[in-house]
């Protein structure tokens, strides 16, 4: 991730703090935290009385599983469909903004390394 070296002096305060994500381990920790949170939430289903309108809701961990599989299935669908739907960026050019740069008059480009 860090093929570009940043000079902390030039970064805003919050940016300097966030430099900790430059370290891949911290990112991994975040992911592990997510796993743990998921596990906890799944278990939580067994500790309260669910109020439901549709019977499937009452299935333990229904939302968790549904969320997970819905997401995976949809992504896989997207992955497959992408093969058919994707076209070159200039496909509609020049009738399209996709193929052109955003004009400078609308921008206020400023970089930290100017």
């Amino acid at each position: 991730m860090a093929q570009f070296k940043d000079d902390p002096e030039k970064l805003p305060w919050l940016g300097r703090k966030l430099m900790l994500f430059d370290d891949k381990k911290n990112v991994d920790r975040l992911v592990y935290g997510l796993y743990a949170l998921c596990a906890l939430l799944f278990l939580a289903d067994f500790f309260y009385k669910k109020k439901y309108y549709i019977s499937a809701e009452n299935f333990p961990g229904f939302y968790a599983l549904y969320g997970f599989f819905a997401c995976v299935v949809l992504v896989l669908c997207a992955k497959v469909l992408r093969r058919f739907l994707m076209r070159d960026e200039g496909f509609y050019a020049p009738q399209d903004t996709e193929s052109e740069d955003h004009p400078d008059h609308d921008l206020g480009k400023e970089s930290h390394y100017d």
Partner: protein
Amino acid sequence: MIDVLPPFTLYLLGALLLPFLPKGHVRGLLTIVVPVVGAWWIWSAPEGLHGQMTWMGLEMVWMRVDKLAVVFGLVFSLAAFLAALYAWHLRDTVQQVATLLYAGSAIGAVFAGDLVTLFLFWEGTAIASVFLIWARRTEGAYATGMRYLVIQISSGVILLGGLVLQYHDTGSIAFEAMTLGSLGTWAIFLSFGIKCAFPLLHDWLQDAYPAATVTGTVVLSAFTTKLAVYALARGFPGTEILIYIGAVMALFPFVYALIENDLRRVMVYSLNIQLGYMVVGVGIGTELALNGAAAHAFTGILYKALLFMGLGAVLFRTGTAKASELGGLYKTMPVTMVLCVIGAASISAFPLFSGFISKSLILSAAAHEHHNIVWAMLLAASAGALIHTGIKIPYFAFFGADSGKRPKEAPAHMLLAMGLTAALCIGLGVFPSVLYDMLPYEVDYDVYTTTHVITQLQLLLFSALGFALLMKAGIFPMPQRSVTLSSDWTYRKAGPAVVWYVGLAVRASWRGTSGLIAKLYADFIKAMHASAGPDGARAANWPTGAMVMNIAILLGIVLVVIFVS
């Protein structure tokens, strides 16, 4: 007296005044003040019908104030205010005037008590908004704007046709709840559907909004589609077909949102999905569902605006909003990133964020009415929203592969606008009753129940888990410079090609025919010239003998005729 004038007049005055003010902050101030005054105006307007007049035999109502209209009117004012703040740096008269007129038209349409008034403002939004796209001043934006305009205006003229038919059928132009059945109502429905980006009628949305200017997209995202939702809620509450339309709308753009490269376009797909929720809500039509639709429109406008502002800020600083070109901005634009994450959390409907309090209303309404499949679809869409918007946008813009871009933080006024919006997102999430009290119907709904919070977190975090795993496995589709085919292919590629070939054929046959006619004509003239021209037989000096011959023949014929009689 002033409070019963349609608030549109205020915006109109502002728009007329603006070009005469000195360029710079005075104009910016005007664009900020107008929505504020407008909001107060709306807030203080007494309920009921105002500005009634009979005109050309039509009973027009310029200002119908009820809770449904007020909630939309207020959120539109709010959006106009935030957008104006966000656009404080803008020095483009056209955009400023267009913004005022656009917002004013949208608000005018919301308070329209009859179909004709609605039509007037409906077209007003179409015309005013296109300038926000053209203001990008590039060839692509010009073409996109033309497509956008044609579609928007087609919605308008279909509305006009529908209202004429409706007027003929019922003798009234009142804008009340209608039942689908007659041609007129179907036309009106279709007209609303176009602006609401129903499936297959939706491509203008994805086409146009990312093509607008940095500030233009923020403005665009607020009004047109929400106005359509309002119109559906007003005109077709409880129309069953809307449930299914909405469910499809909520689900299918997922695929596109996931593979789309331009993040502002991803946002538009997401917008489309959110509209799906609202449409379902309108379709269910119970008090809970309609409240849900209104509330979702309200919160949706805010968090959409927030995200568009965030992406706008990125675009403003880097010159691109494409996922493939971005990444690693979190260090140099950390505030923007945080605010974006707030927006993402809102759209993903994390508890304590605004999306949660409105989306839940609709989901619950679907469950209460036992639209099981629709409910399941919405739930899946909800899970998907986290992926394609909640995670994808912040991830690819601010984290992800480092693009090496080190832009400066967004300007202060942008941050201020985003900050205010983010505060509203959280505020509404924490204090839902503020919003619930504004809704058209009495709300008897507790959003923060244990079940609700836990199930929602399960749903969201497990989809996040799915994302994490898919990323790890390298299955998640990574951004790539590309465009995605959609139904607009029919009118952007296939249609023109067909027209081109038909035109070719028509031209060829026309040339052939006209050439033939021209040749026949020339031949005729030639023949006439040969016979009647100065050297022709008919004009020649005939010898006397020939004349005498003629006399003899004619005499013979006359005699024959006479004697045969």
